[in-house]
């Protein structure tokens, strides 16, 4: 079965420090991976995606993610955290179930990032 896991419910980091939000996946075939951010009472905003190519993907607001096929991971990173980065972060993988509909995404349970000033 296709799945994505975010092992941490919450990540705490001090402003200015590097941050990592973890994501691991299980999917047949080549994965299409996404990161989204959600601020309170708002819709999800797309940050970045990995489809193919360079394992290090750069996205919006200074975020990047590293695709690691051997570890089936796609961790989100930022060199220097800002208080304004505090939000809920979702990892997602495209559903590759045979016969499934185009573009269905499977989302993780989300990780709350709290950046302290």
């Amino acid at each position, binding site marked *: 079965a296709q799945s994505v896991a975010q092992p941490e419910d919450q990540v705490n980091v001090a402003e200015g420090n590097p941050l990592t939000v973890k994501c691991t996946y299980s999917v047949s075939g080549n994965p299409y991976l996404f990161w989204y951010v959600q601020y309170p009472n708002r819709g*999800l905003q797309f940050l970045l995606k990995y489809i193919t190519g360079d394992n290090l993907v750069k996205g919006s607001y200074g975020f990047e993610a590293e695709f690691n096929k051997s570890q089936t991971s796609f961790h989100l990173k930022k060199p220097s955290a800002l208080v304004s980065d505090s939000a809920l972060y979702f990892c997602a993988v495209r559903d590759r179930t045979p016969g499934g509909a185009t573009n*269905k995404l499977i989302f993780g349970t989300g990780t709350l990032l709290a950046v302290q000033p």
Partner: protein
Amino acid sequence: SQTIHQWPATLVQPVGSPLSLECTVEGTSNPNLYWYRQAAGRGLQLLFYSVGIGQISSEVPQNLSASRPQDRQFILSSKKLLLSDSGFYLCAWSFAYSTDTQYFGPGTRLTVL
């Protein structure tokens, strides 16, 4: 550029009342459209998706239904709301027939009392 709208932004409804939430997309044609529900501020549950007018696929059996009367309009409905229908409802779109991203609307906060 493309934009996605949802309304209303917030809604408080009594148990047993009907529901109609609307989502529209501008700036693209024949998008894939999706309805999600987010309960308790966390997990996203895909409710319905549509790849064209009148084509609706249901992911979770429940008292909700969806319709797509026009190419860029997606409606979520219920004849009789339950308490358990409370949540944050998100509409999303993506380009058809590609690996592309889903883009989300601002959401509707539904409270059933």
